[in-house]
């Protein structure tokens, strides 16, 4: 016996023996086994390959049919959507998704059909899933923003609108982003979020195409946000491209009017009316602007006499306003000593009028300010008890506001 062990059974080996005698004996039937195993292995591989091939052809046929059915049902969905059969469209899109569950466009169309069919909750669930897949998809963000806006969730709606504005769009991305931006601004304006709306409008204005219609739209939104100087700029840009654009002319007139630039407003409004004589709003504004310009004693390049005459006319106008107001309310205005603010204003007006004349105002030009301050105060005090001012009284109030640096 050597100290070597049989590699098969681990038993001690005789000298020079390669394996234990028992293993050598066992090897004979094993040969048959070893001949069988490769054959079985080949058979298993052949069966696997055959089954693999069958599965391959079957699944390809299946995939082709699924694809065909998905397209067919998607087309039906679109047709039904066009003919406004919304529930049928939803069903068709749902069937298309069964055959092509991963198709983004199909699911998006389903969500849009669900929205059209007023099934908002279901639509939102689909859109959320789509958003998780493509968080920067502009269309998905826009739909989600609209749903959030409809639910009144302001912060979420704004977030999705931003996603739509800065997300990617497959077709005509610049126009789609602009449209989404416009919708965001309108949403912000609806919710009186003026600073946010102004910021978004400035960003939107920077990316506008050379299209007067867009410029007018943005100008209108600037006006709604109360940013009249930027509105006027947009209208001016539009007029540079289309000088006879009635909306731009009217808008520019309104913006200039709101800025207290009545002379400029009058020019725009006249042009607007020349292009569109049926523009009642511009006509009304033009009348007011004319009155303001006629009554304004502080206008530049005005002669001293004319300034004095205007002051006296304004004093008379304010006195008339107080008298007519008192008459309408059935109260006495000329009372000594005065009991109310109106009576006090009236008494001061009378006193001043007695002292003033064209010559007096020429001698003492500082009285212009004193007189006009009294006029403005009387007009303001009259608004509360006597109702909104009209005509020349309104013009005087506009002058008062401009004088005090307020927005008109």
């Amino acid at each position, binding site marked *: 016996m050597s100290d070597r062990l049989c590699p098969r*059974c681990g038993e001690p080996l005789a000298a020079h023996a390669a394996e234990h005698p028992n293993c050598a004996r066992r090897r004979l039937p094993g040969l048959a086994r070893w001949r069988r195993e490769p054959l079985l292995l080949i058979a*298993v591989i052949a069966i696997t390959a055959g*089954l693999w091939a069958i599965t391959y052809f079957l*699944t390809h046929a299946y995939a082709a049919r699924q694809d065909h059915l998905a397209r*067919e049902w998607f087309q039906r969905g679109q047709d039904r959507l066009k003919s406004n059969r919304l529930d049928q469209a939803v069903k068709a899109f749902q069937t298309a998704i069964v055959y092509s569950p991963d198709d983004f466009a199909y699911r998006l169309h389903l969500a849009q059909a669900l929205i059209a069919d007023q099934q908002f909750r279901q639509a939102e669930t689909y859109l959320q*899933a789509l958003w998780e897949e493509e968080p920067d998809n502009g269309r998905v963000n826009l739909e989600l923003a609209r749903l959030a806006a409809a639910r009144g969730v302001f912060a979420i709606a704004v977030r999705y609108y931003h996603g739509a504005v800065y997300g990617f769009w497959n077709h005509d991305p610049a126009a789609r982003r602009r449209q989404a931006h416009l919708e965001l601004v309108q949403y912000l304006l609806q919710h009186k979020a003026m600073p946010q709306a102004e910021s978004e409008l400035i960003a939107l204005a920077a990316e506008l195409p050379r299209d007067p219609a867009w410029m007018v739209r943005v100008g209108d939104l600037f006006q709604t946000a109360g940013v009249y100087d930027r509105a006027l700029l947009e209208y001016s840009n539009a007029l540079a491209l289309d000088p006879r654009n009635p909306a731009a002319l009217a808008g520019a007139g309104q913006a200039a009017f709101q800025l207290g630039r009545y002379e400029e407003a009058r020019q725009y409004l006249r042009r607007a009316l020349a292009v569109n004589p049926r523009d009642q709003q511009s006509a009304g504004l033009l009348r007011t602007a004319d009155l303001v310009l006629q009554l304004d004693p502080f206008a530049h390049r005005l002669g001293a006499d004319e300034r004095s005459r205007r002051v006296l006319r304004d004093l008379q106008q304010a006195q008339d306003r107080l008298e007519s107001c008192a008459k309408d309310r059935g109260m006495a205005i000329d009372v000594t000593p005065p009991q109310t603010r109106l009576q006090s204003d009236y008494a001061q007006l009378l006193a001043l009028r007695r002292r003033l004349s064209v010559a007096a105002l020429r001698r003492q030009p500082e009285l212009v300010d004193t007189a006009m301050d009294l006029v403005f105060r009387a007009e303001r005090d009259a608004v509360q008890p006597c109702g909104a001012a009209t005509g020349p009284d309104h013009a005087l109030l506009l002058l008062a506001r401009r004088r005090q640096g307020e927005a008109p």
Partner: protein
Amino acid sequence: MSEPHVPATTLAPGAAEMAQPFREDRLFLLLAVIIGVLAGLAVVCFRVTIEFASQYLLGSEVPPSGWRLVAAPALIGLLVAALVIRLFPRVRGSGVNQTKAALYIYDGAVPFSTVIGKFLCSALAIGSGFSLGPEDPALQIGAGIASALGRQLKLSRERMRLIAPVGAAAGLAAAFNAPISAVLFVIEEVIGRWSAGVLGAVVLSAVASVVVERWFLGFAPLFSIPAFPTVRPGELLAYAALGVVGGFASVVFAKAIQILRPRLKAMPHWTQYLQPGVAGLMIGLIGYFGMPQIMGAGYQYVDRAMHDQFTWEMLGILAGLKILATTISFVSGTPGGMFAPTLFIGAMLGGAVGGLEHSIFPTLTATSAAYALVGIGVLFAGFLRAPMTSVFMVLEVSGNYSIILPVIIANAIAYLISRTFQPVPIFDLLSRQDGIDLPSMEEEREVSVLRLENAMQPPPDPVLLGSQTVQEALQRVEHLPAGMFLVRRSPPGWSLLRKEELAKMASLGKGEMTLDSVLPARRIPLLHPDHPLDTAMHYVYDWPLLPVVHRADLDRLEGVVTMEDILHAYRTGTE
């Protein structure tokens, strides 16, 4: 539980004894991969065939509509009945019990004709609208393929018994596209025990089959799960309510099958030809009159439930009708599975409960879709009684870990309610109705294992030491009544010595030799108090007095056991 430690000096198996099982182990693992691939291919074909059958029999619209809804299941029911009775009598039912029977009764044998029959009949039945699913048949198809391969390779009986579950796991994994759930289900419900050898093969086959399935059918999960908000602690109560409802729904479902199935089986034989046709007609009528969603496996509707596509009232109706349709389908003997209908019922029920709760408590953050997902697990735990699989399945199909707490709570409640009112699980119930006594995995899980600590007696006195001489030892024990004594040896180990052997050694002139030098090298295997009692049975014949020692101190004797102690413990434990 570790195997008892056998000191190297006592047992010296030859390399041949070790090499042969080792080689077979490796071959078995390789075979598991091949089984997984074949089962995966078969299940892919099976699923595609079901889809083709459905599209050609019911039309491509989802949900289907028109006269086909009634005609297809009724006529296919008649055809399937004839096929089952005439050609494939073993394909009735779901396939889970047949696979268990292969494991426990038929030494792993599943006739290949069963694979063909199950494939054909289930595909026709499910495709025509019977409210059954493809998973359990896929499980049986996998088991059948594995069994056929095992027979060709002439595997040992032990391996043959295990090969059917390996194939079953592969089939189920491919059908579910969820390998973890498949492995757990097979371990939990078919094999019933965790064993490293089987687990490796089951996992390999499941993974191989899922790889094949995804190769052909893509990586899309069974359901596209939307994102769910994180659950607030207070909302767990709402999920607990779902567990209660799901538990009772499971009981109703199981009781309906328990009551109707034997009655239909007891009817005259000729009616067996008609029962699936009548069942198909009834299901078709349900579909025709407005609820086609309950036909077939219904995965697309589960998906829709998870996307809030139904009102809670509709979800409730669908759950109720699906219980009815599945009961009718199953008790008529039509081949097909219970998994998919269980998922469907669970999802609808969950959605309905969630929707109702949401309408009562609008502040709940989760939508009814989240409840639909949890509901899947609830019915799985309550009806199929696979609590662990139910939890992992929801996690696997959703990929959402935040849902785990509601799932565990709801599933546990449903499971407890179902156990209370339906003590016998559905698969055990079915096998007993068929006159087969298969082991109940639920009962086996709950059997308390007797351990050595339940049988052992206090350490005897004296305990001899290996360093003592034979003479010293003899003097110590010769006046004692006991006939056998334990010897503590060095290095740590134990031997058994009879008084007569001591006396004989002394008479042979070995009185001055130490016990260590005269005792044979073979020692008693080391047993510890936590070892199962039957471990001791392997050794008590060779060593009538077995020492039980501390795990951390092998010299410390905790007690001893004899055959009498073991038998006594078994008697009292059983009582």
